[in-house]
Structure formats: structure tokens, C-alpha cells
């Protein structure tokens, strides 16, 4: 991407932020709110007021349709990088090897060796109801919010990386070097572990995670698993879906179709 294109994208972000502020004070808008000709923000029905704590009546999750997931598309990964300021979304982490760098979400290719059928799927923290990373954390930094989002409180993370060992999905990364250009809403720093946090800052203001918004095929559906009227709950009830490594009985917040 050229410098001028980056600047343009940057300017657009600022306009978006300004519009978001203008929309103001978390007025709970259901469905898609129209802000002007051609400008849409997809919002979730149950936006939580800023002063209220996350409730255990809600459980956020994804339903990912791998049949719709295009082989060469990495839009979800790019959107996450840009939103949360890691990978290509950040100028930091110049000294780490590729396998040391942060990966909050990755595209995984799976092939059936007998039939040679291959497919790709996005893989991120599965937001378990019984997360092994929380079980093993010695400080309580690896935690699950009441609404089912699993994240790291970096204020108390000591960087022991026990959670990285415990996670069956290899979802966690460790930051190995000093960072400088973090996003204000996605703090990350040397010596702490991080992973997909379901774009908690966006969810709290009633928006859907960046990857779900960016997917051109709408293969990633975000919603409240506990709300029987939500699109995700209806689809889960009527269509087949599976958990990856369901044998571990971790009760995942992320479910896949077509695998």
C-alpha cells in the first residue's frame, strides 16, 4: 500500500470516529443504523450502556460458515490487524521472527488426505465457557468476562506464557519487544500475552467485531448465543455446526459449519 493510500485510509478513519462521536452517548440502535446517504454501521441489538457491567445473560459468539470462506481471502485477518494494531496494522515488532509475532487470528488450510479436498477457515480464540487458559493462569490475568469473552488483563499478566501452553487452539501470542504505536482502545505491550478479545471495545459500544464486519462473504456471523431470537441462535438451532476439538468439552463460543 502506498503512503498516500495509507494517509487516505487514515483520514477516512478519522471521519468515521467523528461520526461515531456525533452519533453519541450509546443510543441503542437496533439493526443497521443509517447515518446519511450510503453510510451504514452494523450494530447489534443489545448495545450495553457504558456504565453497566457486562451481563452473564449474554454470551457472545461466532458462527463461521467455512463453505463461504474463500481460499485466498484474508480480509478478516487484515481487518483484525488494522483494528487492533498488530501485524500489518503496526510498524512495531520489527525484530521478532515470523513465528514469534502476534497472531490474533489466522487463516488455516485443512486438507483431507484421502480425497484431496481442501478448505480454509479463520482460526482465533474460541472463547471457551471452560477456558483452560483461565484455569492455569497463576495471577488471574487470563480471565473470562461474564458475557463469555475470554481476554487477558495485561495489568496483572506476568508473561509466564502458561496460558499459551494450555490453549488447545494456539490462540495466544506473546509480545517480545517494545511497542510504540498501539491503538488507544487496544493496549498491548512487551512481556504480556494477548489474543483475540472478540473486539471487546467494539462489542461494548454495540458494534460487531472487525473480522465479521470485513468478511466479504458474510461467513462470520456474530451474535448473542443466549438470545433465542438472535440470528446466530436461530441458525445454530436449525443448521448443523461443530466445535473444533469438541471432544475437549470446553463449550466453545465459536462454532463452524462445513468442516
Amino acid at each position: 500500500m502506498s503512503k498516500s493510500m495509507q494517509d487516505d485510509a487514515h483520514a477516512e478513519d478519522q471521519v468515521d470516529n467523528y461520526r461515531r462521536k456525533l452519533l453519541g452517548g450509546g443510543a441503542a440502535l437496533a439493526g443497521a443504523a443509517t447515518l446519511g446517504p450510503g453510510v451504514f454501521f452494523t450494530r447489534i441489538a443489545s448495545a450495553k450502556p457504558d456504565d453497566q457491567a457486562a451481563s452473564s445473560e449474554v454470551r457472545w459468539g461466532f458462527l463461521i460458515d467455512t463453505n463461504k470462506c474463500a481460499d485466498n481471502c484474508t480480509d478478516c485477518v487484515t481487518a483484525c490487524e488494522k483494528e487492533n494494531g498488530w501485524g500489518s496494522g503496526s510498524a512495531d515488532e520489527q525484530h521478532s521472527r515470523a513465528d514469534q509475532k502476534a497472531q490474533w487470528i489466522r487463516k488455516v488450510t485443512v486438507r483431507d488426505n484421502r480425497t484431496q479436498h481442501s478448505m480454509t477457515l479463520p482460526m482465533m480464540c474460541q472463547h471457551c465457557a471452560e477456558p483452560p487458559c483461565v484455569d492455569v493462569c497463576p495471577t488471574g490475568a487470563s480471565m473470562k468476562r461474564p458475557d463469555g469473552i475470554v481476554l487477558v488483563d495485561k495489568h496483572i499478566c506476568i508473561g509466564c506464557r502458561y496460558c499459551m501452553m494450555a490453549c488447545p487452539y494456539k490462540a495466544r501470542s506473546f509480545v517480545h519487544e517494545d511497542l510504540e504505536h498501539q491503538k488507544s482502545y487496544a493496549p498491548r505491550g512487551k512481556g504480556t500475552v494477548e489474543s483475540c478479545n472478540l473486539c471487546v471495545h467494539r462489542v461494548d459500544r454495540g458494534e460487531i467485531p472487525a473480522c465479521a464486519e470485513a468478511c466479504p462473504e458474510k461467513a462470520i456471523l456474530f451474535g448473542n448465543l443466549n438470545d433465542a431470537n438472535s440470528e446466530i441462535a436461530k441458525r445454530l438451532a436449525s443448521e448443523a455446526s461443530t466445535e473444533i476439538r469438541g471432544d475437549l468439552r470446553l463449550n466453545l463460543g465459536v462454532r463452524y459449519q462445513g468442516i
Partner: protein
Amino acid sequence: MNLLMHQRDDTVHKGIRTKKHSLKNCFTCHVVKGADGQPVSAKSPKHFCRECHDYAAVQIDCFQCHSSVPDGHKTTGAKL
């Protein structure tokens, strides 16, 4: 500082995101700008947090993870 610490736990663990004692909200008013009009980062002794922290010789850990300038700004390249 106590209020900031309290708010940080409420925000991370419970998702309470009121602006009153949020670190992010400090920057909207207190940000110090360099000669080129861009905000100075915590690397600069002119940064508003460092004014007192340097005087009291207390190291700031916040900006190892948190951004020390408001979003959407480049830090100043100008000499102070």
C-alpha cells in the same frame, strides 16, 4: 491515580466504560503539542504525565502498553 486504577479494573473485568476516570479521556484535554502541532508522546519530558512523574522520580509503566497520544495523531517530530 487511585481513580484510574479503580476504573481500569472496572473496564477490563466488567466492561464499564464511563469516560470520567478513563486514561483515554485524560488525553483529550491535557495533551501537549509540539512545535508542529502534533501531540508529544510519553518519550518527551514535556508529556503531561511526565511533568509530575519526572519530578517525583516515579517511572510510568502505563505507556509500555497504552498509547500516550490520542488516536488518529502522529507524534511530533519537531524539536522541543
